[in-house]
């Protein structure tokens, strides 16, 4: 129901795009694979069969032939459809979490693993009854798994 108005597409199918040489074709395919279809948002501009994707592919090829750089073509689309059209968003204050979040999570995970290992090592070293709960529980766990 939601997709009903959004999937509404004109029926006329444009002629297929023609490339002047293989280099142009390769550049075109690389470029449209990095652009998101505004209609079917899970697809790239290269994959989508939506009418607007046909139109935008044609526009991208036109812009290429006008001598625009890849960055200029992306800028053209961002000015009209927003940052959303880029599969690789630019590093900005609104996207830094997207860019660096995974690295931060990895660092936090690494730190935790290091801490757990340190705690275990000290736990086995100082085996005086006041060994840490972690040391005890984990060894208990290992024992259980061994039988």
């Amino acid at each position, binding site marked *: 129901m*939601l*997709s*009903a*108005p*959004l*999937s*509404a*597409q*004109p*029926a*006329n199918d444009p002629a297929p795009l023609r490339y002047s040489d293989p280099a142009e074709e390769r550049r075109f395919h690389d470029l449209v694979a990095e652009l998101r279809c*505004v*209609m079917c*948002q899970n697809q790239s501009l290269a994959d989508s069969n939506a*009418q*607007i994707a046909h*139109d*935008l592919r044609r*526009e991208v090829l036109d812009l290429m032939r006008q001598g625009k750089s890849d960055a200029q073509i992306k800028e053209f689309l*961002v*000015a*009209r*459809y*927003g*940052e*959303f059209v880029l599969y690789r968003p630019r590093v900005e204050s609104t996207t830094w979490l997207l860019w660096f979040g995974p690295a931060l999570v990895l660092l936090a995970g690494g730190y*935790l693993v290091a*801490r*757990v290992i340190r*705690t275990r090592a000290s736990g086995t070293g100082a085996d005086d009854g*006041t060994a*840490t*709960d*972690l040391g005890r*529980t984990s060894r208990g766990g290992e024992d259980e798994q061994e039988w």
Partner: protein
Amino acid sequence: MNTPDSRPGSTSGATRWLPLAVFAALAILLAAGVWLSRNPDREKLPSPLIGKPAPRFSLPVLHEAGRLISTEDLRGAPYLLNVWGSWCPACRDEHPVLTRFAETKRVRVVGFNWKDEHADALRWLEQYGNPYFVVAVDYEGKAAIDWGIYGAPETFLVDAQGIVRWKFVGPLTDAVIREQLIPELDSIATKAGAPAAGASPAAGTAR
């Protein structure tokens, strides 16, 4: 006595709660995702054109062969630009709502006939009635790209200075008109009624 006891106790406590904390964090993350996906408008794109000058076009007029209409021609008073096509079933649903609103004469309603066949568009308006002040035809879809149009219906509100003030994706409903469009129109009207807020024209006349 307290300090040597509490130190190992606190670390082991923290590590014991760690899996639970990680699980809780993941659960919150998943819940946030589910919650966000409940928004029915999540696929609708915000327009980067809001607050910017309306993209220029010069397009043929549907009902008058040879006449062109441009964004310059429309300047001077606010207008509602409604994107439609005879191929679009949702436009059919929207049509009575739009007609009722157009009849109030609050604002000019301009039709943007997108990638349609000329005869189909004319027949469609004959059959269902024509609420539009004027209908511009974009058969190629070039002007539509400049406006960031990606589906139909879509509706833009442009003020008297030619600045895009509001955009709605999908069929207009009475509730959308009441809760979004009318307040926008009111805010445009108060801005236009008030003496020019910009200091530069006043300074210019003083000189």
